[in-house]
């Protein structure tokens, strides 16, 4: 699993909000092509780690992406460097149409032809978005909004995609659909870092997982190891 350079390398990451420590001394690596999941309960610091990586919150420690130090880089430059973030709650722009949401994500790209090809690819993955193209994104259902958020992340051409609770608020059928597509996206070459409370689904597609408790990693291993661990099972899988 650990061959070559990691795509993302995090060392002693800390995130503090005022006097509150959300993440402390977190270190881990992700290698190209992997699906890695961070699981943990509400408030464990999962989202904060993603926000620190994409530059939305200030942090201490070191974050390297493809060997490049991301420290001090503004969030929009981090997108340009190749990290796409699908935020918690989807974060689509409800006053923009579906097509505009997808187009906005290509702000830093100037390869019009490739952009068009990528949009076709997104529409192939999520055919419903093609039908909804000129509709305001705020009128989409929760599942469609999640698809749009993922489609938008693909349009940035990120090599690493961060996903924050993509299953939140969706029906089990839709969650299975979303996870199936996530696997397809991964097989097409995008590395995934997946934050989930739905540990069942996350461990099914991830090769490795980290368990986060009150801001620190308390368990790390392959998905199989986690599924076999009685403590993890009791705390996060309810079995």
């Amino acid at each position, binding site marked *: 699993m650990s061959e070559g350079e990691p795509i993302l390398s995090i060392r002693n990451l800390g995130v503090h909000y005022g006097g509150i420590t959300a993440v402390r001394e977190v270190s881990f690596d992700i290698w190209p092509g992997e699906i890695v999941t961070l699981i943990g309960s509400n408030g464990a610091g999962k989202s904060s780690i993603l926000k620190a990586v*994409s530059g939305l919150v200030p942090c201490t420690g070191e974050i390297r992406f493809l060997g490049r130090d991301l420290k001090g880089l503004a*969030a929009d430059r981090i997108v*340009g460097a190749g990290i796409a973030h699908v935020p918690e709650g989807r*974060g689509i722009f409800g*006053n923009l149409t579906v097509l505009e949401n997808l187009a906005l994500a290509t*702000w*830093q790209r100037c390869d019009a032809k490739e952009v068009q090809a990528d949009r076709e690819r997104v529409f192939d993955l999520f055919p419903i978005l093609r039908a909804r193209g000129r509709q305001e994104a705020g009128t989409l259902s929760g599942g469609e909004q999640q698809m749009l958020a993922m489609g938008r992340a693909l349009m940035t051409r990120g090599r690493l995609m961060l996903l924050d609770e993509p299953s939140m608020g969706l029906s089990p059928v839709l969650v299975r659909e979303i996870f199936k597509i996530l696997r397809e996206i991964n097989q097409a070459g995008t590395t995934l870092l997946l934050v989930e409370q739905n540990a069942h689904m996350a461990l099914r597609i991830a090769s490795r997982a980290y368990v986060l408790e009150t801001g620190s990693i308390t368990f790390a291993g392959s998905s199989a190891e986690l599924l076999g661990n009685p403590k993890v099972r009791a705390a996060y899988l309810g079995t």
Partner: protein
Amino acid sequence: MDAKYILQQALNALQLGSIYALIALGYTLVYGVLTMINFAHGDVFMVGAFLCFSAAVLLELPFVPALLFSMAGTALLGAAIERIAYKPLRRAPRVSAIITALGVGIFLESAMLALNPYPKSIPTLIDNVTWTFGGVTVSSLQLLIIALSLGLMLLLDFVVYRTKTGMAMRAISWDRALVPLMGVPVDRVVTLTFALGGALAGAAGTMYGLAYPVIDPYMGIMVGWKAFIAAVVGGIGNIRGAMIGAFILGGVEILVVAFLPSTYRDFVAFSLLLILLMFRPHGILGKTRAQKV
């Protein structure tokens, strides 16, 4: 009161409404991206009028270059105000930003007063021809003001609804915190928004200075408030609402002056604001946005 008189007043209303609209758009643009009311904006309009004066008198420029000079100057001024005065307060309480905006406005008025203690008059930059159609008098200046304003409004509408920059502005008004995740440099788009609003105010200042006899450092206060009312009446943050609000306000003012003592004008304008907001707190086109889930 005959049809001619009403038609004549309608033309005057269109002219006044055009000027209000150009200024109202600046309020609404800035509110859209920062949910902040830029109370210095009326004074940017005033600076626009003085820049046109300088271009016409000191540089002896004809109309089009003078207009462009004024618009470029106020665009720069708008952007500079944002960078210097507002950006450091982006995370401060909203009251601080409002007080700062009022302060910037007073600063601009005082600076202009220091530079120009006496009211000025902009020379006629265009040949003002008047035509009379069946008793209704139309001047070329009036037509120019209306046409130019409508042109600038169409251009702005195009920028906001048809370009990627406009897309980014609208996205910022929905959720500023998430826009960087699209790779969009939010600060640059915000500054550009102030520049756009400034340019429109400069155009308004130029046209106001051509249409009305004098310009002075305090001219932006009342006109600025009126344009602000127009933006609120239309639904602040809404581009088309600002234009509609401006023409309604222009129309109401002209009607008041036509049928009532002219001293009633501002009283009626501000009453309109109060009454409308009682019934439609978000303005004509403003919407209460559903909370995001």
